[in-house]
């Protein structure tokens, strides 16, 4: 079977499938940064160019963003996002230099509503400059972004379902951390403490495996989610005494 760059869902133009959240009403501030997040007003600088403010998308693999698995790298690879016409589903096999983002700006009614991330215009951004998140991709969106970015970088087309298998456990971690923070913060924990607790809990060993690693097995995810929901209100990270 010939493999091409894939559209979101066959011949359907259901662009909502690409996104987890768009706009201030939908974005959750304490969700960990993830591949495909779009940020506005980010100061970036090209080689031999002046500092400019742009809308950008994180295009790095989630593991590359966090070299130690927890803390963000000081240099995050991003691609510029700007206006681009809607690419019909039967044309997604083209335009390998970009990730189409139709309906990205849901509050905009003009053609500016439709954007794309351009892989030829990349920058490195400091995480502290990524303050204004305006969109997060869904798992499907992340898989398609990685497929296109890998194709652009190496001229290899990897089926999106292989990315799904490889990335879904990391996406799962981001979901769990987001929900953990929501629950812990409602119980009075500060956002940074809640995030630290969530990471520590995921790295705790249970039945010979960290929960983080256990999430690689889809069969164990439901149990870990349930445990996280139960633990989040009161569980506290206790660093080992040195």
């Amino acid at each position, binding site marked *: *079977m010939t493999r091409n760059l894939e559209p979101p869902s066959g011949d359907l133009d259901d662009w909502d499938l690409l996104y987890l959240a768009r706009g201030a*009403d939908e974005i959750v501030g304490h969700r960990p940064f993830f591949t495909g997040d779009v940020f506005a007003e980010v100061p970036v600088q090209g080689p031999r160019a002046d500092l400019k403010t742009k809308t950008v998308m994180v295009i790095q693999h989630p593991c590359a963003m966090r070299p130690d698995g927890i803390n963000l790298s000081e240099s995050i690879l991003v691609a510029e996002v700007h206006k681009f016409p809607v690419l019909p589903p039967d044309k997604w096999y083209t335009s390998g230099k970009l990730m189409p983002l139709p309906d990205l700006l849901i509050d905009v009614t003009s053609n500016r509503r439709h954007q794309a991330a351009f892989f030829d215009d990349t920058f490195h951004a400091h995480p502290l400059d990524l303050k204004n998140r305006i969109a997060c991709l869904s798992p499907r969106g992340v898989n398609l972004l990685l497929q296109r970015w890998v194709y652009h970088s190496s001229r290899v087309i990897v089926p999106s379902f292989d990315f799904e*298998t490889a990335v879904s456990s*990391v996406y*799962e971690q981001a*979901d769990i951390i987001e929900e953990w923070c929501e629950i812990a913060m409602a119980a009075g924990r500060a956002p940074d403490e809640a995030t630290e607790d969530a990471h520590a809990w995921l790295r705790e060993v249970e039945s010979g495996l960290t929960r983080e690693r256990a999430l690689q097995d889809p069969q164990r995810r439901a*149990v870990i989610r349930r445990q996280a929901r139960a633990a989040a209100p009161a569980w506290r990270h206790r660093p080992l005494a040195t």
Partner: protein
Amino acid sequence: MSNEDSLLVTTRGTASSEIAPPPKLPTATGSSPTPSELTERVGFLNNRAQDLHSDTDDLHLDVIMQEWQSRSTDLVRQDMSTLLAQLADLGFAWRDIARLIGVSVPAVQKWRRGKAATGQSRFNAAAVLAACALIADHYLVKEIASWFEVPVVFGCPITAIDLYAAKKPQLVFRLATGNADPEQVLSVFDPDWRETYRSDFEVFESEDGGLAIRAKER
């Protein structure tokens, strides 16, 4: 019965064939059937058994669908946040709950914060919960959310969540009963699934413990 359902059953029967007696075949000696006659008779009985099996299969699915409807109608009396909390207690991810109900994740988050849902959305949430309860009760599935999110067939990423989200609950119930071959169920859902999900790549655990992708060995 829909075309999709009929694809799950290779041999179909009719009501008249159900009640027709096996053919009385002439015997060569008057009492002992010849090998050829035996083949005919047993073959006929086998066909009848298969017809009966497929008909009871259909009947089974019909009553499951009725029970599902009835359970859904009972559950829809609960408010949306209660329904969502029960689905979360089963261990589902919010994004999967959203897919099963047929809405976006932000819509589910708004309902969790108390925003009103439409009657149809509440019914859809109740229907998901009812399907889980029905499958767990009748088919002794202990971790129902895990059952829903694990691939139907090893090596193919399609899950029961995908089947349900594509509005094919009958395929989910067929799977749950254990009476249908999972590969046949997938073939009904996507006749090309073997080809669609064949890959030259494989996912492996890399040295840092994370998952990575490499080309398969030829």
